[in-house]
C-alpha cells in the first residue's frame, strides 16, 4: 500500500517557501506550513516538521472551539464530560483500532484528497481557499505541532472489546 511514494498534486509544499504565485508577499505567514508527502492518496507517513505529538495537549486542541473543534461534528465517548457532541461525522471513540496515524494525518491535513466532497475542514492548508477572513488569511487552522498533538490524542481512542456496539 505504501510502496509507491506518490506526490499528490500540490501535496508537497516546501517549508519556508512561497507556495504559489497567488501567495506572493505572504511568505512570512505561509512559512508556518509544514512540508509533507502524501502516499497513495490515503496517508502522510512522516510526522509534520518532524514534531512529536503530546496527547494531553491534543485533547485540549480537539475540544477547543477555536482550534480543532472536532466535537462539533464527531461524538467521542471518552470526552462525554464535554457537552454537545455533533453528529455530522462518524463517532471516533474507537477510531484508533481502525486507522493508522499516517491515515489520520492526511485526514487532518487535507481530507479532500480522500473525499473531495467532504464537509471536514482541511486543517493544515492555505492554498485554494476562497474569501478567507483577513485575520485567518495565509494561516492554517492548526500548526504542524498542533496536528501532531491531535494525532497523538486520537491514537488513544480505543474502546475495550466488550464495550463495542
Amino acid at each position, binding site marked *: 500500500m505504501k510502496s509507491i511514494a506518490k506526490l499528490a498534486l500540490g501535496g508537497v509544499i516546501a517549508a519556508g517557501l512561497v507556495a504559489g504565485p497567488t501567495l506572493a508577499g505572504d511568505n512570512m505567514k505561509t512559512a508556518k506550513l509544514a512540508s509533507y508527502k502524501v502516499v497513495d492518496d490515503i496517508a502522510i507517513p512522516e510526522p509534520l516538521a518532524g514534531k512529536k505529538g503530546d496527547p494531553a495537549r491534543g485533547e485540549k486542541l480537539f475540544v477547543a472551539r477555536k482550534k480543532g473543534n472536532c466535537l462539533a461534528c464527531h461524538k467521542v465517548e471518552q470526552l462525554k464530560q464535554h*457537552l454537545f457532541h*455533533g453528529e*455530522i461525522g462518524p463517532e471516533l471513540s474507537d477510531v484508533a483500532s481502525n486507522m493508522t496515524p499516517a491515515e489520520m494525518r492526511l485526514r487532518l491535513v487535507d481530507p479532500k484528497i480522500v473525499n473531495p466532497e467532504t464537509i471536514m475542514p482541511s486543517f493544515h492548508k492555505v492554498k485554494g481557499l*476562497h474569501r*478567507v*477572513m483577513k485575520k*485567518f488569511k495565509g494561516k492554517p487552522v492548526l500548526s504542524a505541532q498542533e496536528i501532531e498533538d491531535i494525532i497523538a490524542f486520537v491514537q488513544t481512542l480505543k474502546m475495550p472489546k466488550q464495550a463495542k456496539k
Partner: protein
Amino acid sequence: MTRKGNKSMGAMGGLAALAGAAGLLLSGLLIANQAAAKSKYEVDGRKSGYHYSNPETNEMQDDDFLNPGMLWVQRGIALWSKVDGAAGKSCASCHGDDARKTMRGVFTVYPKLNKKTGKLENIEQRINRCRVENMKAKPWKWESGELLSMTTFIGFLSRGLPMNVKVDGEVKPFFEKGKAEYFKRRGQLDMACKHCHIDNPGKRIRADLLSEGRAGQAFPLYRLKWQKIGSLHRRFRGCNKQVRAKPYKPGAEEYVNLELYVKWRSRGLPVEVPAVRR
C-alpha cells in the same frame, strides 16, 4: 391583532384527559399544537426551519401576543402613514391607507428584476426605491429599525401565502449566480452552504440542530441570540463568518442573487414573517 388559528382546542381537550402531571400536560399541548403547524410548514418534502426549531420558540412564533417580532410589525404600520421627504408623501399617499389591500402577496415574488436598471432587486431595495424616487426621501440604512420594520410589515401582510419567486427568463442568470454561491466552498474552514443545509439537515453540529436553511419565507425574523429582528442578509453574514469567510455587505449583489436561490428553495412554503428562532 387576533390570535392565530393553530391553537386547536380539540387537541387540547383530548390531551388534557390523558396527561396527569401538569408539566407533561404543558409540553403535550405544545407538541399537539405544533404538529398542526408543522404540516403547514412543509411542502413536497421541503421543510421550513420551523421543523428544526425548538417547541419554545415555535410557541412564541405561533402566538401573536408572545411573538416579539410583532413589535416591528407595529412600527411598520406606524411608518406606513408617516410623511417623509421633499415630496411630502407617505407610503399611504400612493398605496392607500389599508396596506392589506395593495401589498398582500408582494413579498412572495421578491427578489425580482428591476426593468429600469436590469438588476435584481429585493424587497428592501424596492422599498428604498420608493423612498428615493417617489418620496424624495433618504433611503433607509440596511439593518436600521425603519427598514427592518417596513420589511417585516410587508412580509407580515403576505403571511400564509406560498413563496413564489420567478427564476426563469431574464432572471435566470441571477439565479444561476446565486446557486453557484450556495455551492461554493469558502473561508478558512472551506465549507459551502450546501455542506450544512443540503448534506446534513437534521443532524447536530455541536449544540445546533442543522435545518435545511429554508427561511426565505421566514425573514426578517426575531432571533433570541440577537434580541431583535434581523434580515436574511444578516443571517448570510453570520453563516459566512462561522466558516471564517469574509462576508459581503448587506444588500450586495452577491447576497441578492443568493437570496433569490434561497427563496426558490422556499418555494411553496407559506410566509411566516415574523418567525422566531433561537
